[in-house]
């Protein structure tokens, strides 16, 4: 669509949608974590959810239910009597260490490769597919809706749990509801947003909103607005300066804190600070010119278009044999393609990459040009495999999705 021209949504539409959804809705949930002073529970549960996903990879079991079960066990152990004489913070610290170590151990024993390790622990926002964004959005909307509907008892339990209990509220049940919602959101969102980004958006926008010292309703609204600004700012910075996407959003969320602080001193100072920070973004861009086809301005009528057609056949437990064919249309040479073309596919698990074309100079438009096949892993229960065309392998920082390339979803056998 023309109004998306030049925005992150033109290049990475589902990543953009996932980031904005998380930016708007995660802080609504995170505000309660901050107000209940159980911030460390958020990061610990994020690691537990990651360990659950990793265990799923290792045992070839459904990762999401496993993550939820581990989170439920962790909540029971970390907040109940099972923690014994340990303080809450100490128990959460111990739980964080254990969950982080278990996630690494499970992954080191699983057949997955190192990219999958990174994606489980740090998310794969850039490769988000429509199904991922739908799942993330449903989880976040449910979580935010539950906390908004229950805000009066949650607020009382956070403000003065002793009196709330004395007057008949089941304080522990309300806390468990909040922690349960958090566990569900973290587990379902882990695959897309990763633990670092999730935790940052839970924590930082509410902290910045609290610095503005408004009422409760305004603080919740500001948390959401600031989360949206951090997500949008991080997205833009990542695209403009070719930065790591999740880290850009996290840094943008961190910068909310000094900007909010400055706003309390003088709003103009805060605006100047935010403008100055935004002006620094282009300086972070790599010195060498961008690879052709990645960050140039596209004319309204594109000189070329790519179509990748996929088909899948069973190839043993958890694997399929994927066949692809690549068509190039209207290749005029006016707009050069990237030198390489890579296919990034995902079927309910971390993305996998396949090289389609080593040198696009060998391509000719209008021909049925490239075919190939490879075995790829699919998550249990996955019904569809989606993909994107990229200008390089995933570990190449200069690589990016190739615009004007379509890869229709492929049904799985």
């Amino acid at each position, binding site marked *: 669509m023309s109004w998306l021209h030049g925005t992150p949504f033109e290049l990475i539409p589902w990543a953009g949608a996932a980031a904005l959804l998380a930016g708007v809705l995660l802080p609504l949930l995170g505000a309660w974590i901050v107000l209940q*002073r159980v911030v460390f529970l958020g990061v610990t549960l994020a690691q537990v959810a990651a360990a659950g996903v990793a265990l799923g990879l290792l045992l070839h079991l459904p990762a999401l239910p496993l993550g939820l079960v581990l989170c439920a066990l962790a909540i029971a152990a970390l907040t109940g009597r099972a923690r014994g004489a340990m303080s809450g913070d100490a128990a959460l610290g111990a739980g964080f260490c254990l969950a982080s170590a278990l996630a690494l151990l499970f992954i080191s024993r699983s057949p997955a490769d190192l990219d999958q390790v990174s994606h489980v622990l740090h998310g794969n926002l850039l490769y988000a597919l429509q199904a991922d964004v739908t799942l993330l959005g449903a989880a976040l909307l449910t979580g935010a809706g539950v906390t908004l*509907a*229950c805000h009066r*008892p949650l607020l009382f339990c956070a403000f003065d749990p002793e009196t709330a209990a004395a007057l008949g509220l089941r304080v522990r049940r309300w806390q468990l509801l909040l922690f349960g919602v958090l566990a569900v959101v973290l587990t379902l969102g882990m695959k897309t947003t990763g633990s670092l980004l999730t935790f940052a958006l839970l924590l930082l926008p509410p902290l910045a909103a609290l610095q503005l010292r408004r009422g409760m309703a305004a603080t919740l609204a500001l948390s959401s607005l600031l989360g949206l600004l951090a997500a949008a700012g991080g997205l833009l910075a990542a695209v403009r300066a070719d930065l790591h996407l999740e880290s850009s959003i996290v840094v943008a969320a961190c910068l909310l804190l000094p900007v909010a602080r400055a706003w309390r001193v003088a709003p103009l100072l805060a605006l100047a600070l935010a403008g100055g920070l935004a002006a620094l973004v282009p300086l972070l861009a790599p010195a060498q010119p961008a690879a052709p086809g990645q960050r140039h301005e596209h004319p309204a009528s594109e000189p070329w278009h790519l179509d990748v057609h996929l088909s899948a056949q069973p190839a043993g437990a958890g694997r399929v044999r994927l066949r692809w064919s690549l068509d190039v249309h209207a290749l005029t040479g006016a707009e050069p393609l990237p030198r390489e073309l890579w296919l990034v596919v995902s079927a309910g698990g971390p993305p996998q990459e396949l090289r389609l074309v080593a040198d696009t100079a060998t391509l000719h438009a209008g021909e049925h040009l490239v075919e190939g096949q490879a075995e790829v892993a699919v998550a249990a229960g996955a019904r569809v495999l989606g993909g994107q065309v990229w200008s390089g392998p995933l570990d190449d920082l200069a690589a990016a999705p190739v615009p004007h390339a379509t890869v229709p979803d492929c049904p799985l056998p």
Partner: protein
Amino acid sequence: MSDGRHAAAPRLRLLDVACGYDRRVVLRGVRLDVPARGVLALVGPNGSGKTTLLRVLLGLLPPIEGRVELPAGRAPRLGYVPQTDVSEVLIPVSALEVVLMGLVPVRPLLGRLSAHDREAGRAALQAMGLGELAGRPFRDLSGGQRQRVLLARGLVADPELLLLDEPVRGLDVGSSAALVATLVRLARERGMSVVVATHSLDLVANHADHVALVDGGTVRSGPATEIMTDAVLSEFHGRPMRVAVVDGQRVVVAGGLP
């Protein structure tokens, strides 16, 4: 405040109660009636078990032995005013929002409070002399103002039994007197029963109808006229104590100090 006689059935009755935490018994053999009207003061040194006894009366701490009876056949509507420092001042709530928390347990938990409820909250603040501060953030209030906001929250649901934990701790003399005067007036007007845990013997001597002395792992209770005497207080504190009257106010003076 009253003559100490209470024809109505007690709100609560503790029969041979032992209470404490985990397996550590703090108080044992407690027999105590919470009268249907008037002020019952729980008095004792730090660590004697006043707050533990208060938690039993609130239902937060089940007795290890003995039982808590409801002579009226039903649990009274409770109000509770904790010490001010248990509230989480990080939370950005206004004085009115704090007061309205007192209605949360007696209204549907989901959804919004009615305009009538909000009016009741404003009236409770008005009764505490804080009508002008309804929109002020709780964290920006002084200690005395916070205590009165918490008292308004304790009263907003029209309780039959109001329990207070050290309500005048940390308050200056003027604020303490104003708070206590308001509390006693409201208790009288509404026919409430009030239980207050306090260190302030002067407050007890002037306003309590019944007194429970808490120390040494047990409780001795009775009408204030029998407990707040030189002999009983001297025995309880282990040093000469005297209840004097100055300008119509009772003052408890500790003797035998170096």
